[in-house]
């Protein structure tokens, strides 16, 4: 009955390494080496003992080498070793979700920036919300090495529950199916807002994910919707973009991954991006046709601030509403890049005021000067003003001020 498992990393700030050896006799021994021994040594030992008891393990040697891991990391690492030894154990050691992490994400919310954070690097997860990205993606896919895929799931699960992302949309990029389906068990019941589906090539992939999410929602009595954001990363995906965008009512955005896409079409990824121009257009069209948000790829050179700015400018001109970020320093630049211009804001204000004027008169026709205003234009104007407000470009009560100034 001897079983051995390990998880985590040694000598890595904010992480710990856990080694569990299940024995036939001898009770529990806990051997702890910790950077924070004198401050939290006792608390760590107590937590470890509590967990082994919870999992009904009576004889085991547990070794922990801790480099200042926060409680959500420590418990994730310990549970990963337990589950490696006993894959049949279904119970989960879960901390309660703090009140402040119970916020919801709306379907229509802004998704200008989404910060990718490797799911197995606690140090980067802890402060991911600091720069207020619209979304934080805990990545289980490409940023996680195959050997630690399983233990990363516990980190991501616990982070979803316990880490304060300061209002950011909690997103998880699952692995390609079928592995991605199991990933869902670790995220759907734990407060994920949106699931990113990588390397999406057809509608069936989206449907398969959606079906499993609905099963989990019923099982765990989850009222809030779990949204989907398929990532198109191949030529076939681009061809099937509209089918992918419309495969599920839960889908809120469609995005493109250019690194894999360019490899797939046999081209090199360039700064100008001519090789992906059509594909990106196609993604925008498919998303708009489906009534969801088109979101651009990441800009992968962290040090090239000017390049990022140009890339955002281009993305905006193509119709994209957001961009992926691989470093917190890109977030503000992305937000500034997607901010509406003063002329956009002024025009939007005029449209909204014209609409209200028309409503007052009981007229169904909105006109600005000699031009008729159609509903999509009004909708866009509303969104521009909402964005301008989020960016501190206009006050919430701009209408009153306009009226006062108008008079």
């Amino acid at each position: 009955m001897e079983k051995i498992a390990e998880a985590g990393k040694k000598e890595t700030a904010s992480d710990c390494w856990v080694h569990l050896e299940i024995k036939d006799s001898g009770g529990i021994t806990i051997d702890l080496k910790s950077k924070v021994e004198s401050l939290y040594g006792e608390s760590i030992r107590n937590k470890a003992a509590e967990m082994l008891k919870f999992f009904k393990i009576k004889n085991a040697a547990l070794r922990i080498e801790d480099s200042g891991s926060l409680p959500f990391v420590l418990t994730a690492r310990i549970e990963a070793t337990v589950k490696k030894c006993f894959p049949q154990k279904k119970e989960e050691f879960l901390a309660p979700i703090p009140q402040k992490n119970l916020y919801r994400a709306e379907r229509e919310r802004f998704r200008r920036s989404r910060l990718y954070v490797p799911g197995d690097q606690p140090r980067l997860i802890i402060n991911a919300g600091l720069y207020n990205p619209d979304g934080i993606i805990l990545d289980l896919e490409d940023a996680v090495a195959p050997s630690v895929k399983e233990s990363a799931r516990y980190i991501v699960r616990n982070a979803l529950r316990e880490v304060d992302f300061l209002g950011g949309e909690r997103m998880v990029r699952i692995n390609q199916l079928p592995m991605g389906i199991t990933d869902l068990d670790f995220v759907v019941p734990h407060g994920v807002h949106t699931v990113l589906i990588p390397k999406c090539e057809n509608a069936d992939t989206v449907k398969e994910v959606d079906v499993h999410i609905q099963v989990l929602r019923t099982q765990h009595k989850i009222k809030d919707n779990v949204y989907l954001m398929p990532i198109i990363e191949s030529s076939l995906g681009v061809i099937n973009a509209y089918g992918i965008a419309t495969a599920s009512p839960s889908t809120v955005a469609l995005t493109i991954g250019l690194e894999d896409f360019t490899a797939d079409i046999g081209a090199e990824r360039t700064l100008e991006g001519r090789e992906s121009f059509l594909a990106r257009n196609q993604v925008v069209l498919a998303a708009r046709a489906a009534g969801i948000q088109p979101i651009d790829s990441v800009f992968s050179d962290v040090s090239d601030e000017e390049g990022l700015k140009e890339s955002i400018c281009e993305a905006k001109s193509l119709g994209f509403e957001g961009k992926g970020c691989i470093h917190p320093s890109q977030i503000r630049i992305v937000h500034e890049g997607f901010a509406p211009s003063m002329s956009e804001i002024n025009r939007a204000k005029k449209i909204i005021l014209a609409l209200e004027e028309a409503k007052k008169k009981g007229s169904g026709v909105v006109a600005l000067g000699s031009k008729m205003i159609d509903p999509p234009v009004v909708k866009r104007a509303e969104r521009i003003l909402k964005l301008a407000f989020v960016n501190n470009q206009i006050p919430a009560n701009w209408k009153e001020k306009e009226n006062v100034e108008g008079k």
Partner: protein
Amino acid sequence: MLKGSNNAAGRWIPEEINEKAVVPFKGVGNHIPAGQKASPPVFSCDNYPRDGNKVVQDLHEALKLAGLQDGMTVSTHHHFRDGDKVANVLFDTIAEMGIKNIRWYPSASFPCHAPIIKHLESGTVHHIEGSMNGPLGEFCSRGKMKGQGVLRSHGGRYRAVQDGEVHVDVAVIAAPTSDPFGNANGLTGKSACGLLGFALADSQYADKVIVVTDNLISFPCIPWQIHGNYVDYVVTMDEIGDPAKIVSGTTQITRSPARLLIAEYTARFIKEAGIMKDRFSFQAGAGGTALAFVTYLKKFMKEANVKARFVRGGSTKYLVELLEEGLTDYILDGQTFDLNGVRSMRENPHHVNTSPFTSYNYHSKGNFASIVDAVVLGATEIDVNFNANVVTHSDGMLLHGIGGWQDCLFSKCTILAVPSFRDRIPVIVDRVTTLCGPGDLIDVVVTEKGIAVNPRRNDLLDAVKYSNLPLQPIEEIKREVENVCGGKPAPPKVDKDHVVAAIQWVDGTMIDVVYKVL
């Protein structure tokens, strides 16, 4: 049981340290010493070579001539930081001479001085009075040092020499360039470190002064930051330091997103509180967060077309850029941290070298630390009363020195810029492990979780009232940190009957003590 009493900050202070009576801290500005300053003996130039050549064979010879004996006080200085090679050779030599029970009075010691532990164990060195960074601090914390450590700020060290609290018998000054008369500077030579300000008091007050150099040039050595008129002997060595560790090629800005945010909040605070205006002044250190702060502030200064009158070093390339781009009239520099700083000090008359005498000196008719408009510093811990610790970690281990930190607290706006926790170690706590700076002098604490203004500073609170800075009560930040870290940390496990070191306030009173870590 040790005898002692609580000082004005509520910290227990023993009656004696190293068998000498101590004065407990009385509160900021409440201890006014009187009397006469210490004075060195009367010298006569007739006792020195007429040809001005004071070069002797080696350090052994110089120490013998200086009359070094058991129980004396020997001083060194930390201009070479972790690249110093002189102190190790010095104590090897003293050990060879069979001399015991030396009181070592460094301006600071670094991890490179770990070899001196064997001399502490053998009894060559009795104890250290000076900042202990790293291994020597740990040795002291474990209760292994024969005497008790005494930590003073840069200004406090200068003060102790001036008022005779510490009499230096032999000062050993490592100098990147010297002439045979003993005129010396830090500007040139392969071990160039910029300036030699920390050795100034020792050169003036010590009985005997030895200059050690690896770049002996013909008289005169200009500029003479250290005057040969104070120097007894000059010794040459092949290598007095490791240039790569004395100054770095370039100092690095932090890449940690949390620290960058802290730096940005700090710069924004200075801007929005109205401190950043024409002819203002500030000081920031050379840590990654401080450097990032300077780049943010520079951006704001350019946007607002504001120029500083002076900035205080430790200088780095980032301060030098401010000077060279005309964004400040002067750099008043205490030490240079990179090659750009050294170059600028050598070439630019507006890059001025200072010493603890000009900047931090308590026994003086004013010092300019209190003229500086804003200073940005770090800390290992800060408590909800804005008291701060810079010397021990939360486990009680003594691992850092005070440096100029206490002296800088007298700035018009003292800002501590720190992460709210490091790994799982809370920085914002209920009560600091060791008190180094009283909350009366600490005005603002900037963390990645928000900015706390000391309620004592209503003026600052008013100034930023309408800004969109993330202002938070310090208790709120502390609560959040405890949430993240999984509760309050356990108190350090120390032996309260075993005081291993004392922390002096700038005026020479004792503000706290450090206990043996179990």
